[in-house]
């Protein structure tokens, strides 16, 4: 737990609203408050991470202690930051028994805060609620590069504290160049939640413009057929996404003035703190190269063949015009390439041994559910093993591996990218 230098006491009056900044640890000594739709009572401790601010609405005269490293962690606000329209929407979802609620908004429009509030309030009304987080860049449910599903079991201040009930491995921080899988992921997790008869709140990415943004958001609505689409907008910047959609499904909500922009540096730092935390208990494991299934790649999908050439570690024949996949010890010389082309045909797909190091992979069980992620270390063609670093403890559950498009160090730091199609 983080150590703080000072403790700041505050005694908020009944009806007052305070915004408390992180990193800090809040202890409610007396009274009662509501934070992001979660009731806070005497004796509760709340950890607010760095770069986060939480508004507390005090229902009665209260006392709090804030441990922090800043002189003024609490700012008194003139009024409630949560508008009545949010509560109106909660009651509408409740009364209409809405099943799927999709939340759209630009980057930094407060979508996750809004989704957390909706989920907490609906949970408070004894509704089964699930949240599907499909922002793989700023993941709250599950680690970065995945989509996550959580069934609410208690009100939460931050979705990153939620138990992960379902994961879908996207393999990248961004759905760009991963459109199909982004759509499959949101559909699979939403359907999984609907099986539990929950109201599903779908938190989306802030990519809402341009070809990709329009296509992705349009396709998500087409595939999920939401009962309610929430547009979190400042002006009319999302209207293009819902043109032609049933007007009674659309709810327009103004972005809170408190929604603050997050710089790319902070976004990266937030992502890395999540991936560091995810991999901190990881260990080097081995998977059997001959039986593991691989997805979204050519490697290990063809018919193994023997190629007698000193540079070749592994060879497989791919169907039709796809040619032959070769894993070689080092980049081929022109002479070696010509020799191999003559023997195997011109369509050679060459992988140089070591290219796999650091590549993020999703680990899939026999029901094709993602059990977690790993970081590839090496393919050992002699021992017939795939070595990878993963926090997944029971490696026997793993039947397959989805190759991702990003690289990580085993400490969870981002280390680069892999061109889709490399493997």
């Amino acid at each position: 737990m983080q150590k703080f230098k000072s403790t700041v006491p505050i005694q908020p009056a009944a009806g007052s609203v305070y915004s408390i900044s992180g990193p800090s640890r809040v202890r409610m000594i007396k009274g009662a408050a509501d934070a992001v739709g979660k009731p806070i009572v005497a004796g509760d401790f709340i950890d607010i991470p760095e770069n986060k601010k939480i508004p507390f609405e005090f229902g009665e005269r209260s006392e709090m202690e804030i441990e922090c490293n800043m002189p003024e962690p609490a700012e008194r606000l003139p009024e409630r930051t949560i508008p009545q329209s949010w509560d109106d929407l909660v009651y509408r979802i409740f009364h209409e028994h809405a099943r799927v609620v999709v939340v759209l908004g630009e980057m930094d429009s407060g979508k996750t805060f809004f989704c957390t509030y909706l989920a907490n309030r609906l949970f408070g009304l004894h509704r089964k609620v699930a949240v599907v987080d499909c922002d793989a860049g700023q993941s709250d449910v599950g680690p970065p590069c995945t989509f996550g599903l959580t069934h609410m079991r208690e009100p939460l201040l931050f979705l990153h504290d939620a138990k992960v009930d379902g994961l879908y491995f996207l393999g990248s921080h961004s759905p760009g160049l991963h459109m199909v899988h982004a759509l499959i992921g949101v559909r699979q997790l939403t359907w999984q939640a609907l099986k539990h008869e929950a109201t599903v709140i779908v938190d989306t990415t802030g990519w809402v413009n341009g070809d990709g943004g329009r296509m992705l958001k349009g396709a998500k609505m087409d595939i999920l057929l939401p009962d309610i689409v929430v547009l979190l907008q400042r002006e009319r910047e999302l209207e293009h996404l819902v043109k032609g959609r049933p007007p009674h499904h659309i709810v327009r909500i103004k972005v809170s003035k408190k929604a603050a922009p997050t710089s790319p540096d902070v976004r990266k730092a937030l992502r890395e703190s999540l991936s560091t935390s995810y991999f901190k208990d990881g260990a080097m494991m081995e998977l059997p190269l001959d039986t593991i299934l691989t997805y979204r790649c050519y490697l290990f999908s063809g018919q193994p063949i023997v190629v007698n050439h000193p540079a070749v570690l592994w060879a497989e024949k791919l169907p039709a015009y796809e040619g032959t996949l070769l894993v070689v010890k080092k980049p081929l010389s022109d002479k070696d390439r010509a020799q191999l082309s003559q023997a195997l045909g011109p369509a050679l797909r060459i992988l140089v041994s070591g290219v796999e190091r650091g590549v993020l992979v999703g680990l899939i069980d026999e029901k094709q559910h993602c059990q977690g992620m790993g970081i590839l270390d090496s393919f050992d063609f002699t021992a017939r093993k795939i070595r990878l670093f993963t926090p997944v403890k029971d490696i026997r559950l793993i039947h397959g591996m989805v190759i991702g498009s990003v690289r990580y160090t085993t400490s969870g730091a981002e280390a680069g990218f892999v061109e889709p199609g490399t493997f």
Partner: protein
Amino acid sequence: MTFRESEFPNMVSQLDLISKNYPPDAVSRFIREMLRIYRAIPLYPGLVCMCMGKAFEKWDPKNPPPAKGTFVVIRSKGSAAFAGTILSWTPAAIQIEEKNAAGKTVKTKVPIRSVVGVERFRTDTLEAFWPTLVFDGKPDAARKAAR
């Protein structure tokens, strides 16, 4: 037709535009830089385009002239364009080393009075505008030297 599902067509459009408006050596450098950035961030062709859109930077006459050795494109009256590395820059003329069609270098002097614009070619746009996506682990000086 439907939406483009990636930003690769924008890279093609950018190449088309550059090939029509810049001398061959500038086009060649542009392609090499585009490839370098694409290889560094293959998931983000949109950001490749964004970086490459800033690769030719207009020189503002209020600023000191670009340093010796900088690759520039000089546009002169009569719509002629010259591309090369700066050898000297005086109040009277800019002298550059150009690569001709045969790949040989030639020295070209462009009188200042005929210059209508100068563009500096930048090979640091990814590092300057998207430092969070740079993973080569090199210090800045080594990165510059490598290019």
